[in-house]
């Protein structure tokens, strides 16, 4: 079966975001961008399913600016077979993203779509679930184990309190949690090879999707700053401070 893997180009997770002085957003000029870490895990899982003989082809998809090509090339270097860039400079919301992925799923007929559980910029945690609603497919979110068994997939999910396992009819949507796997590094020969793998460029209009935002960002501000308190000299001083606050056994 074919696996569709949406990936997003985001601010690198090691970079501390800076809010723009005019309150319009986070400054993304001249900062390091990378593939969303949860999406890397999605690409890795798809590759592992291909290595096990479950998947036959992996199609990586990204919606974003021309530079999102780099993110797709990273997915291709890891082991994806081909890529589709849906190019737009707009900031596309999860609902519109899900509509674009739905149109691509209709055209490609994948057995599984594997997305990250959330992007580390918008922190929405919505796109996979929305895509599942639009396709009418089952969803296995926050996955820490994925096993395809015939025409079903069993997904172990990380939930509050522990783990739970659900069995879903294929085709299905899976969103990855951090513990699903450890993504591989792309080797230099694979990075070179990825340059000649096919990458189609489309636009949201090609899929008939209107990307006008439904939610307007009125302003973006710094969170309240928490300042450093005091350093205590020893355990006795800490105990005294805690007792003064009313913390004791």
């Amino acid at each position, binding site marked *: 079966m074919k696996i569709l893997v949406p990936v997003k180009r985001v*601010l690198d997770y090691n970079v501390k975001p800076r*809010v723009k002085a005019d309150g319009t957003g*986070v400054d993304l000029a001249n900062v390091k961008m990378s593939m969303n870490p949860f999406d890397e895990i999605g690409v890795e899982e798809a590759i592992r399913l291909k290595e096990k003989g479950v998947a036959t082809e992996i199609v990586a998809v990204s919606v974003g600016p021309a530079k999102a090509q780099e993110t797709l090339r990273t997915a291709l270097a890891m082991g994806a077979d081909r890529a589709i860039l849906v190019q737009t400079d707009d900031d596309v919301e*999860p*609902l519109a993203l899900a509509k674009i992925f739905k149109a691509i799923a209709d055209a490609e007929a994948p057995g599984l779509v594997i997305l990250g559980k959330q992007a*580390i*910029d*918008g*922190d*929405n*945690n919505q*796109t*996979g*679930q*929305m*895509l*599942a*609603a639009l396709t009418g497919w*089952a*969803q296995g979110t*926050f996955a820490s184990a994925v096993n395809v068994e015939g025409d079903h997939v*069993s997904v172990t999910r*990380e*939930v*509050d*309190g*522990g*783990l*739970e*396992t*659900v*069995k*879903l009819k294929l085709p*299905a949507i899976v969103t990855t949690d*951090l*513990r699903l796997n450890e993504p591989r590094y792309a080797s230099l020969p694979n990075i070179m090879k990825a340059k000649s793998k096919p990458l189609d460029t489309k636009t949201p209009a090609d899929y008939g999707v209107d990307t006008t935002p*439904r*939610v*307007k*960002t*009125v*302003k*973006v*501000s710094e*969170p309240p700053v*928490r300042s*450093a*308190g*005091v*350093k*205590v000299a*020893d*355990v006795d001083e*800490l*105990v005294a401070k*805690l*007792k003064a*606050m009313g*913390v004791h*056994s």
Partner: protein
Amino acid sequence: MKTLVWVEHDGKAVKDATLAVVTAASQLGEVHLLVAGSGVDAVAKDAAQIAGVGKVHVADNAAFDHNLPENVAPLIAELMGSHDAFLAPATTTGKNIAPRVAALLDVMQISEILSVEGPKTFTRPIYAGNAIATVESSDTKLVLTVRGTAFDKAATSGGSGTIEAVSAGSDAGISSFVGAEIAKQDRPELTSAKIIVSGGRALGSSEKYQEVIVPLADKLNAALGASRAAVDAGYVPNDYQVGQTGKIVAPEVYFAIGISGAIQHLAGMKDSKTIVAINKDEDAPIFQVADFGLVADLFNAVPDLTAKI
């Protein structure tokens, strides 16, 4: 505005996570609740007692056990014909269901709201809590998830909601629940605890976590937490994890022990009232947010603290 609040429950009682959502919903308008599952009469009665609740919709059907979104989302979407907003807690259950509901209604969801600023205006954290966005919806119906630590909990008594059965919904037949491994904890729940004692990678092993962290938590009747590094290293189960990708907590007192304070961890606990850090490295970023910092070897300091407090 009529709101519909998802009641998170374990089949016996309403979970605490629901109570903060009721507070958020009451800032928007009339509060209606939805209790879904089989044999949930006791939960519905419980729910009707919550202060400020108007109607409690009860969908009694085995298809709604285990909160499978394929079955539950269409039920909610149908009930949204007579409601203006759907609110769920930003727990793994709420996050699993709400976006599916939003897409069925063709509206954008607003995730993890921190405050209600107007009938359609909310604040929410982005970039792991490093920025706060004020956002305004233009959709006709609202779908929101609510960060539990940002709202006070509604009182569990004093309400007089009316219970009403709902016959909608059925099993979509595309998903089934196989089983669960729920970690047993005989102590307060992490997200609602007044005190949390968290351990990090510096502990070095699961044994040391048990030996150093657990006795202090026991003595303070605190919940146990951990950094992602400690979870990934296998010292504790993953549901102990505090952070952007784990649980978001805001207790009265948070003990960060052997935790450096990476932004992913800070995103989960920096709204705690008082933060106490014990770390050997005096340059650890955790000290930039700690109210009380102790630079010391945790293997000496923590047992000493446990003995003296």
